[in-house]
């Protein structure tokens, strides 16, 4: 709104301020308007402004409203003070809201960890449980084959996913320019990372278990999990590789290294902490994965599966087995709670280890990314 249109319609006449008469809105009026608005003062009602009969007449008094026919400076001051008070209050309220909601969210984290560990840690850390043979129809069984299955599966998967992921990351950051191909790869990685794990599970069942005739086996599961984890590993490796300063590459190239030699001698060693962190976190995801494992690896075994072509039962899948077929194991609740606590402990440890390893390697190399 400006002074030129001020007299054109009833709306504008109502909103017009005394100052409008003499030479349009000055800066003071503009500021007043802004402040009034900030203060939430309804310009028509609060008596801060006058009506169309502005010149000389007293404004009509309204019940409950302080008659305000103050000087302009006073009005500005009052509006500003009001705005400031409101803003201060809003700030306080918002801060309180953020604090309390965040406290709620963080206490959920604490609650989850606390309850799981409280219910199962005693079981999980007893050697007879961890290293014991599983029992059916009888109490007191252990989970040793499941523990081995989980780690075996993780090892097999890492063996495939790390070379693939790091290779892809190196290609994307060191060899490929921005083009149709890289866009395609990125789209593939984005989409693959969004595919629900149960879809990977039934895909692995069809392709690896049935079509390639691997049967329910660690290898079938590892192939499935390779595909599932590839985008994430690729992403963390690419981040690590890209964070290596360009000067390292330039130095190597200037010494006559080829591209690959540069990557091998200058880039990958420096990117190693990041890649290692990614790999350790990947182990956490593999041992925690169950939906993609149930139909590719198996749910329950009696003996330790030493061959990658044998069915196995990672802990995560075994918890599901206890939940669905619990009747076969009288103390299924104890077993599942123990496994859940052990898994959680494992993931927490891996999480800490990932940071620690990255820090240690970085320190030793005297290099900070």
């Amino acid at each position, binding site marked *: 709104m400006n002074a030129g249109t001020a007299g054109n319609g009833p709306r504008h006449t109502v909103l017009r301020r005394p100052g409008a008469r003499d030479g349009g809105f000055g800066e003071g009026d503009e500021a007043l308007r802004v402040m009034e608005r900030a203060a939430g003062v309804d310009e028509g009602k609060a008596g801060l402004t006058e009506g169309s009969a502005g010149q000389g007449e007293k404004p009509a008094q309204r019940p409950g409203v302080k008659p305000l026919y103050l000087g302009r400076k006073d009005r500005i001051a009052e509006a500003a003070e009001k705005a400031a008070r409101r*803003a201060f209050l809003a700030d306080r309220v918002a801060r309180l809201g953020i604090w309390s909601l965040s406290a709620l*969210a963080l206490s*959920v984290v604490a609650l989850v960890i606390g309850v799981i560990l409280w219910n199962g840690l005693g079981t999980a850390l007893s050697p007879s449980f961890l290293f014991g043979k599983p029992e059916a129809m009888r109490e007191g069984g252990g989970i040793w084959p499941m523990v081995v299955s989980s780690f075996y599966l993780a090892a097999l998967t890492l063996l495939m996913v790390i070379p693939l992921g790091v290779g892809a990351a190196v290609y994307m950051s060191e060899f490929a320019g921005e083009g149709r191909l890289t866009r395609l*790869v990125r789209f593939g990685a984005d989409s693959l990372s969004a595919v629900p794990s149960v879809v990977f599970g039934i895909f692995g069942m069809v392709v690896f278990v049935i079509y390639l005739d691997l049967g329910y086996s660690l290898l079938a599961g590892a192939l499935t999990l390779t595909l599932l984890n590839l985008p994430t590993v690729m992403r963390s490796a690419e981040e690590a590789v890209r964070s290596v300063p360009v000067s390292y590459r330039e130095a190597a190239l200037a010494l006559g290294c*080829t591209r690959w030699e540069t990557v091998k001698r200058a880039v990958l060693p420096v990117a190693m902490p990041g890649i290692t962190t990614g790999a350790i976190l990947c182990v956490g995801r593999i041992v925690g994965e169950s*939906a993609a494992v149930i139909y590719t690896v198996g749910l329950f075994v009696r003996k330790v599966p030493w061959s990658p072509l044998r069915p196995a039962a990672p802990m995560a899948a075994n918890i599901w087995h206890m939940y669905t077929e619990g009747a076969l194991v009288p103390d299924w609740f104890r077993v599942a709670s123990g496994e859940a606590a052990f898994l959680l402990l494992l993931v927490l440890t891996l999480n800490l280890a990932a940071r620690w390893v990255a820090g240690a390697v970085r320190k030793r190399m005297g290099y900070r990314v």
Partner: protein
Amino acid sequence: MSSISREWLIKRILLVAAMVVVLGLAMVVYFMAKESLPAFREAGPANLFSATWSPRDGRYGMLVFLVGTLTTAAGGLLLGTPLALSLALFLTQVAPRRSRALFSRGVEILAGIPSIVLGWLGFTMLVPWIRKLSGSSGSGILAASIILAVMVIPTITAISKDALEAVPASYAQASLAVGATRWQTTWRVLLPAARPGILAAVILGLGRAVGETMAVAMVIGPASVFPTSLTTPTHTLTTKILMEMGESTGVQRSSLFAMGLVLLLLAMALVLLVRRVSGGPFKYGVVE
């Protein structure tokens, strides 16, 4: 071998590694489509997308499960997003500077907790609570939404935190310099500036909620009918696939793959949406 041809070979090998994701995606799409073909051919789309699941009578409708997936995911987002956003603001604006790293670690840990463990917690603690409070069976959309809220919090928090941190400091400085309070700065400057990132975060959270299987499976039911309330059993697409894949054959099995195909297309649609919203490739993968 000369170093030129070795370079050439290595570049080709690395290219193959990069193409594995594309190939993998293509294979997943192909096999889902191929395996669900019999269902489309023999039962027909009208049957597949109807609301009745009763394989014995030749009814393979997935509508109940699709609705289950969407309602639980919406519930999870509804509960989780406010918590996650305030957590992101807390970690970037409000929390004492020294403790920010510690709290961030807490959120990261939540992201790393296996879904089966959260499901187990839901089954052993949450469902009995709801059962006691509501007098119903306890499992259902409410329990699933609460568990999903816990699962989407780390995703949404981490990505919105990144988005908030990416806003140039000068924006906030300018706003504070003209006398705006912290909250005014946050609400009028930071949040609008970070909006694309926050939107992407919420969509990615939705993706995680839609695809979650184990945690939901332990608290949702099971029942293959529309729930009559928030605390009566039902199913989602993922849990239905999980529960029945083991013991189904023929058209029934194929219709489970059709559900997988729907999930897959849903996930890819969300990916495209995120790219649209955030104007480029987003940070994919599990939040670390």
